[in-house]
């Protein structure tokens, strides 16, 4: 039984803590059940399911810490694990950046769990795959897809009285549809907390439509173009930028948030005034784990130090409002610790993607970017390519598919060249608006489909 209730988890954590002889001790208890199904060439290739339950104990003496893990829960095993963590801690080198553990915290009740997702079984997965493969077969298209569902819980506790528990579910689905002759390709990649909000058939139909529409792409010269970026395209660039929004590297002078002459760019206007990015664990469309810091993820899974997550504004009207501060760096700088953003919301407007296309004289619709890699962390310059459907827009209409481009662009420059923002939708565990961006830099052409 991989999913323990709050009471069951607390009982085990309390027992572990009762064995402690260390100065401080923290316990993480995690369980998950994940299942997946994969298909390619219109046929299921692999499927599987796994249950895991694991306990981790961290013992601390002074500034020395040691961690031991186990997946057996009888008293003798728990006590043995505590002793082993203590033994490892005594032998560990001192960590001068060690921060004493937090005391009791109050956590939000976030809606990260959906019973419907927890009930997914192998038959459900097979049906989801069938619903995706079948329409493709009927249209002589080739489907390759993957669905992974996870249900889990995460509990944390420590010898200073902190305790937190969260249960969560998630489903990621991705589908690539290709034409039989390989000249067209389309993609969709929804993620949901609640499986009842996902239709593999509907997502596949989007990918099918893109595959058929992208056949016989024409080559355009590389250069600077006005682009409309679907959220599936822009998400990774934005995620990369948000992951780099860390105070310490900025203070150390090795970040795009570093200020010339020293310090950070906190408080500076770095982006177009329409750019506002927040995190909000209570958002109904994007519920997040209630604890963070040192590894607290969207799906629970630890929570590390157990800093409570709260609603936070990172960028407001183009101005940098918050940087992530580890507890060590926050103390050094005399500020409050701020866990890094995971699962952010970029505010937008009310326009749909279709509205953005309609208002465009000349431009390129990008449905997906791929193989994005950092080129220069100083300027947040990234390179990557368009993939699975890129289209030329003229006079408010999609005119024809175009060959894929390689880009070299910085999300910082991109968010200064905003023409319009649409209504945010969930993409890759974030809420992101479709965006119209001017002067986006494409540097070469690719023959890939």
């Amino acid at each position, binding site marked *: 039984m991989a999913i323990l209730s709050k009471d069951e988890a607390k009982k085990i954590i309390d027992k572990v803590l009762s064995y402690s002889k260390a100065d401080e001790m923290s316990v993480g208890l995690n369980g998950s059940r994940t299942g997946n199904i994969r298909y390619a060439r219109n046929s299921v290739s692999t499927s*599987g399911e796994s249950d895991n339950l694991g306990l981790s104990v961290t013992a601390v003496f002074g500034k020395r810490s040691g961690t031991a893990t186990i997946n057996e829960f009888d008293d003798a095993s728990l006590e043995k694990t505590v002793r082993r963590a203590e033994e490892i801690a005594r032998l560990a080198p001192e960590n001068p950046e060690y921060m004493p553990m937090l005391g009791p915290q109050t956590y939000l009740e976030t809606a990260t769990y959906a019973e419907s997702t927890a009930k997914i079984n192998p038959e459900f997965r097979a049906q989801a795959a069938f619903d995706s493969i079948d329409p493709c077969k009927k249209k002589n298209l080739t489907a*390759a897809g993957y669905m992974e569902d996870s249900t889990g819980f995460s509990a944390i506790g420590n010898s200073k009285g902190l305790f937190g528990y969260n249960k969560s579910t998630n489903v990621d689905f991705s589908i690539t549809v290709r034409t039989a002759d390989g000249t067209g390709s389309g993609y969709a990649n929804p993620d949901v907390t609640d499986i009842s909000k996902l239709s593999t058939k509907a997502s596949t139909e989007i990918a099918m439509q893109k595959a058929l529409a992208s056949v016989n792409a024409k080559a355009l010269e590389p250069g600077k173009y006005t682009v409309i970026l679907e959220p599936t395209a822009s998400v990774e660039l934005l995620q990369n930028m948000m992951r780099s929004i860390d105070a310490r590297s900025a203070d150390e002078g090795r970040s795009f948030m570093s200020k010339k002459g020293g310090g950070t760019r906190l408080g500076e206007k770095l982006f177009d005034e329409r750019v506002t990015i927040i995190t909000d664990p209570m958002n109904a469309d994007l519920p997040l784990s209630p604890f963070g810091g040192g590894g607290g993820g969207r799906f629970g*899974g630890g929570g590390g130090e157990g800093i409570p997550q709260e609603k936070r504004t990172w960028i407001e009207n183009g101005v940098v409002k918050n940087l992530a501060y580890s507890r060590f760096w926050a103390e050094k700088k005399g500020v409050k610790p701020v866990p890094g953003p995971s699962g952010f919301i970029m505010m937008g407007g009310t326009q749909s993607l279709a509205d953005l296309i309609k208002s465009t004289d000349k431009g390129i619709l990008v449905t997906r970017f791929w193989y994005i890699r*950092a080129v220069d962390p100083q300027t947040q310059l990234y390179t990557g390519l368009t993939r699975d459907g890129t289209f030329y827009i003229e006079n408010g209409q999609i005119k024809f598919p175009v060959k894929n481009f390689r880009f070299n662009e910085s999300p910082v420059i991109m968010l200064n060249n905003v023409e319009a923002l649409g209504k945010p939708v969930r993409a890759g565990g974030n809420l992101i608006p479709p965006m119209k961006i001017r002067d986006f830099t494409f540097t070469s052409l690719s023959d890939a489909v």
Partner: protein
Amino acid sequence: MNRRDFNQLLGMGAAGMVMSNLPAFSRSVPAEALLEPGMDVSKKKRLADAALNAAKAKGATYADVRIGRYLNQFVLTRENKVQGIINAESYGVGVRVIANGCWGFASVGDARDESVVAKAAETAVNIAKANARLLTEPVQLAPQKGFGEVSWKAPIKRNAFEVPVKEKVDLLLAANAAAMQNGANFVNNVLFQINEQKYFASTDGTYADQDIHRIGPNFTVTAVDPANGRFSTRNSLSAPMGMGYDYLQTNPADKVTGVTTRYNKGYDMMEDIVAAAKQAKEKVSAKSVEAGKYDLILDPSHMWLTIHESVGHPLELDRVLGYEANYAGTSFATLDKWQTKNFNYGSKEVNFFADKIQPGSLGAVGWDDEGVKTKKWDLVKDGILVNYQAIRDQVHIIGEKESQGCCYADNWSSVQFQRMANVSLAPGKTPLTVDQMIKDVKKGIYIIGDGSFSIDQQRYNFQFGGQLFYEVKDGQIVGMLKDVAYQANTREFWNSCVAVCDERDYRLGGAFNDGKGQPPQSSAVSHGSSTARFNGVNVINTARKI
């Protein structure tokens, strides 16, 4: 516990990225546990037979079992601090079967009892039978003779786990101090050590006990110019190797001197980090490249990644066939091109071979994860595409009678599938040194070390950066450049190869974490080459203002 959970349980944000290298279901253990011998081979055979017999009794026409113990030690430091020491072990058994013409797989952690392993085998058969209902093409498994009870051990001189942790910490901290004394502002320095103890058995009659070792020292030195708000980094010129701690024993014969020192099978961390500190500073104020066409001279420490992306991946048969269409992508190197027997992948200078046997390489093993004895084979001969990388259930598609032996699973809990072998550029046949090569270049850039990399999903268009860029004018190296990246089309690029230095310059580079599959699995692979020259490649300037 999965990898993500383990990261989070450790509660070490700084080490988070590093942790993702751990195998699935790893548990933290004391360092001494890494030297414990593990299960006796006779016990492994009993477990394996229990699984094979149970699978056959349930109706499997083929079965294999992998009993795996995966040991990892990571030492993580920055400047004068130890950020973490991770000792981890993952142990379990995976059983794969064919029943009703379909694959089935099941795995079980901590399995030490024959009945538990037999049950996993039965589950695998049940899964195969269930999936057979959706089957369109029954598995065609290339025949493979059994080898009986055999073993293979990586030719290491010193097991890294026998070296006290303190000795490793002392080395890393001394190196960091040397970097700081030579102008570095920051240093991150890590040491990865891996031991895979794998036992494979199949109904073909092979029982292979293998002991695989890998080591990967890796640092990044950062130099900051706060007045101008600029910074630069220089990564280590080490390679991850299929070696023991002997890789860290310096040896003059393993040094390649020149504009900067590079290393073959013995890495001098102290020397490299001092050079890195000076070069990171030099890079901050180096000349920004002028975009345009240049002849490129690519060092093996850089070349491995270009080979990996533009040759290794497109010649994986599962990509060619479309099995990776939804993730890693497909390939431009389609079967019809191969069938013409005259598809110019590269110029006549270009010969690529695949292998799982080069001593010291990350891919080297005795038998692959489906009991095939490993070997070496040609992929591109005198510029012409001649073969792919394929495994037992694929080789019939390319008319081969036996597998090439490149099947791999990253863990006992993962199902094995086709993974990249070592793919290497053969050295030139006529004597040629790097100095001789540079002497003929009028306008060129000499690139050392790997950097940024990106390639499209069919492996046509790529862009690569590097660690060190030197401008070459009229046969001379005239100074350092920065903001360099080159873009090319795979086929045009390899056809622009005009010379490859001879075998004296041949070295391996590689990666621990080549990703493929859903759920993703990682694999370690090396790529060898000598320095090579490419004419008229498009170089862009990557400097921007924000």
